[in-house]
């Protein structure tokens, strides 16, 4: 549904987005990650047609944003970064406006408005003026606006920003649910959200895509991903662990009296349990007692930190 091909955008002499390409298909939820100022919002603004790319091409639903923007935009729902909403209207007037400009009239309009009011829990503030809403409610109002026409493509810039934990959970589930039948792109700084809701994630740093894969793929890139953590009780120092086939390196972690901690680095996939079995055999033979044996998944924040550069390196 969304195709971004070699898109570049500069502001003055500063390049905000450089040669970015990716595709989002129907049924996919793409998480957009990256440090502050990486170019996430700029990319989303180009997808929705608010900004024009300096170079490259963007198509939405097969329609070129540069040529057929008006038709393409009908397919898109957009939640901009700061969740803007007309503060001189009430919630219901604002949603009516959003529905009407999307071409919904009469009964279809009121049905759509009622649906999003229920979906975003806005019933209690229906007639309240938007400028007196709390931040979270304003955010939800803008969220409601973005899904009012049940779009095929959803672009959301930090959709859970400013929401309370319950609402964050609610929105994640909504995104996941809607992702089955739509193409969704959303940006976030909360890495658990990527694991919870995305089918794929892109990490962008200083305008360039530095990683693109499923959350599991990305986690697999962590240094310790796939390694085994082992705690044994043994009277003498255990030997022979390093000789197990598939163990690349044995790291002895600090241990206490009679308890020994190890990390066994391995690149084997989690489905392959030969190492675990070999450890069990060794333990049986040497009468060690296994206290703990776990496989590390790798953490997304570790991957994020290792492939994006911190601010002070810029």
């Amino acid at each position: 549904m969304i195709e971004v091909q070699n898109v570049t955008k500069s502001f003055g002499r500063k390049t905000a987005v450089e040669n970015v390409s990716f595709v989002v298909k129907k049924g996919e939820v793409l998480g957009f990650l990256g440090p502050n100022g990486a170019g996430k919002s700029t990319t989303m603004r180009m997808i929705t047609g608010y900004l024009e790319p300096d170079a490259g091409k963007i198509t939405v639903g097969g329609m070129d944003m540069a040529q057929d923007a008006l038709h393409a935009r009908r397919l898109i729902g957009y939640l901009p970064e700061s969740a803007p909403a007309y503060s001189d209207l009430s919630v219901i007037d604002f949603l009516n406006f959003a529905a009407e400009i999307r071409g919904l009239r009469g009964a279809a309009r009121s049905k759509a408005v009622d649906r999003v009011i229920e979906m975003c829990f806005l019933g209690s503030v229906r007639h309240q003026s938007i400028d007196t809403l709390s931040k979270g409610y304003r955010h939800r109002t803008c969220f409601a606006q973005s899904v009012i026409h049940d779009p095929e493509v959803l672009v959301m810039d930090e959709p859970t920003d400013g929401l309370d934990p319950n609402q964050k959970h609610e929105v994640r589930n909504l995104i996941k649910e809607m992702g089955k039948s739509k193409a969704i792109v959303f940006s976030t700084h909360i890495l658990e959200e990527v694991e919870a809701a995305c089918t794929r994630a892109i990490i962008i740093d200083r305008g360039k895509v530095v990683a693109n894969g499923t959350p599991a793929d990305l986690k697999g890139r962590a240094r310790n991903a796939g390694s085994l953590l082992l705690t044994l009780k043994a009277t003498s120092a255990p030997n022979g662990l390093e000789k197990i086939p598939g163990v690349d390196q044995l790291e002895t972690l600090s241990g206490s009296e009679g308890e020994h901690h190890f990390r066994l680095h391995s690149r084997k996939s989690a489905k392959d349990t030969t190492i675990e079995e070999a450890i069990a055999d060794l333990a049986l033979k040497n009468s060690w007692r296994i206290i703990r044996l776990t496989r590390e998944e790798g953490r997304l924040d570790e991957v994020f930190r290792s492939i994006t550069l911190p601010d002070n390196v810029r």
Partner: protein
Amino acid sequence: MTTDSTITSENQTAGTDSATEGVALAWHNIRTVLKRELLASFYSPVGYVFIVIFLLMSGFFTFMVGQFFEIGEASLSRSFFLWHPWLWLVFVPAIGMRLWAEEQRMGTIELLLTMPVHPWHAIVGKFLAAWLVVALALGLTFPIVLTVGWLGSPDYGVIFTGYLGSLLLGGTYLAVTSMTSALSRNQVVSFIISVVLCLFLILAGFEPVTNFVQQIFPDASRLVDFVAGFGVVPHFDAFQRGIVDVRDLFYFASVIGFCLFATAVILQARRA
């Protein structure tokens, strides 16, 4: 989209009635934007306050300063419409300053311009909404017409063209304000720039000013004539004499058209 053939066939069907579809869509969008704009204008008391102030001011100028009764004429041009270039000068930028400035300050411009709305639809919709407010204020001065009608027997044709001229004058100022409000996210800044530009439109053709300039620079008469061509007052005055000239209509239409076009250009430039 599934296959290439579906795309082309859809494009073809879209192509045959795209013109009528385009007009219908434009009209729908303009109306929707206009409606929202009007709702917002009267959601807060600001809209009402502006209109009341305008009515008080025009009453004050007509009866106290304009010496409506002392002139002893059953006409409105020398007591009432005389003040409109100056009244609108303050009132119209005050109504129009929020059109785009507020949109940029709140960030809603990003919403509006990513909806299936052409910038032109939004510009025209907003302009018309504010012009309706101007028209409403103007319409509410009808007691003055009743007063002259009661006191004497005025030429209602001249009064009508007087109102028409005043409405066009307000529209012209409003188009200027639409342009200046696109320039800044600060309403006060757009108000001030707009007042300055509209003042230029008044003074450019104002006889005391042109005579004065001509006295100082006797050689620059062609330049003075050229600048005077931009003046709004001669065109406005024609309407006050009951004359509806195509050239005057053309003047108002072209200034409005130019300023709205400039609004589009400025908005586009400020996005990148």
